[in-house]
């Protein structure tokens, strides 16, 4: 995980996972919170601490980076249709945040309509591969494991059944691309599902 960036009551502490676009400051970047939820962040005014934050599925981010969806579309279709807009309170030395309906927010706070990501360098390629290298949580059902996904993308993409003979634990984490068990544990379901 990257460095801690901001702490918001609504989503927790966000740590920078990767910066997608830089100008004189990071303009578009991805953060994760402690529950591994990802948030796409757009810098509007760095000196005022004005940022627009959208919780996104891994699939949405991949579609944006792959130029299948415009950046504006991704923000407009944020999870729960909520966008968080921050502003820095220099008196209190902290960020204040307001929630907006992603469908109704002013277009001046979003990427321009019709614009695709269209940036492709080694850093972006590497990040895209990391996003695609998903880990599924599988719960034991009798003699086999069945996927209980973290988001819709996992369910649609793959239904992986891992033989129980490889694991005695209640839950296992499987690397999708390698289809191999990477971690075994015995935790309550709610600890694993974001």
């Amino acid at each position, binding site marked *: 995980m990257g*460095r*801690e*960036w*901001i702490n918001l009551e609504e989503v927790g502490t966000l740590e920078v996972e990767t910066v997608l*676009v*830089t*100008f*004189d*400051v990071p*303009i*578009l970047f991805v953060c994760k919170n402690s529950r591994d939820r990802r948030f796409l962040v*757009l810098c*509007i*005014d*760095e*000196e005022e*601490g004005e940022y627009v934050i959208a919780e996104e599925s891994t699939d949405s981010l991949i579609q944006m980076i792959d130029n299948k969806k415009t*950046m504006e579309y991704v923000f407009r279709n944020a999870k729960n249709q909520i966008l968080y807009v921050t502003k*820095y309170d*220099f008196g209190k030395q902290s*960020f204040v945040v307001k929630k907006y309906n992603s469908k109704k927010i002013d277009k*001046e*706070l*979003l*990427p*321009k309509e019709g*614009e695709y990501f*269209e*940036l492709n*360098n*080694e*850093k972006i390629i*590497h990040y895209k591969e990391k996003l695609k290298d998903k880990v599924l949580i599988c719960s034991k059902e009798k003699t086999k494991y069945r996927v209980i996904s973290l988001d819709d993308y996992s369910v649609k993409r793959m239904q992986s059944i891992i033989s129980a003979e490889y694991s005695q634990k209640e839950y296992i984490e499987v690397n999708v691309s390698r289809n191999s068990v990477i971690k075994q544990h015995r935790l309550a379901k709610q600890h694993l599902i974001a």
Partner: protein
Amino acid sequence: MEIDNEYYERFPTVLRNALISGQVEFSQDVLFEYENMSVYRGIKYGKNKIKIDKTDFYSHVERNIPGVDRNDISSYGCSCFEDLEELHMITKFPRRNKAIAKGTIKERFGPCKKSNKNTHVDLFLYDNIDISGEFEVFEKWEENGLI
């Protein structure tokens, strides 16, 4: 060249103190000697500011940007790019009063760090070095596009 506290004295106060205290350090791939490099830098530009000045090369820490990570040495650098591709992305976003400047950076300005994954260059300027004269406005925009 010895990279020690005496060397650190050459940098602006915020970086100097962070280096001496060990809060940050130069990584192994920082270049203290290098050939002149042609780079592009995003700058402020608009009706209230049409000239490049030294403030256009301040680091995030010097600009006191909220949320900056003072444990990351990149926060004390000046971001530049060797090509325009990533800087051109700015036209896709609601950025106000910005332009791209083009210029040359030299080792006497300070050490730099080049990314191995894109064309980004972090320049760590020495104290009292004003490189604004080495740059000129290359591209600027109004609301509706390039002008």
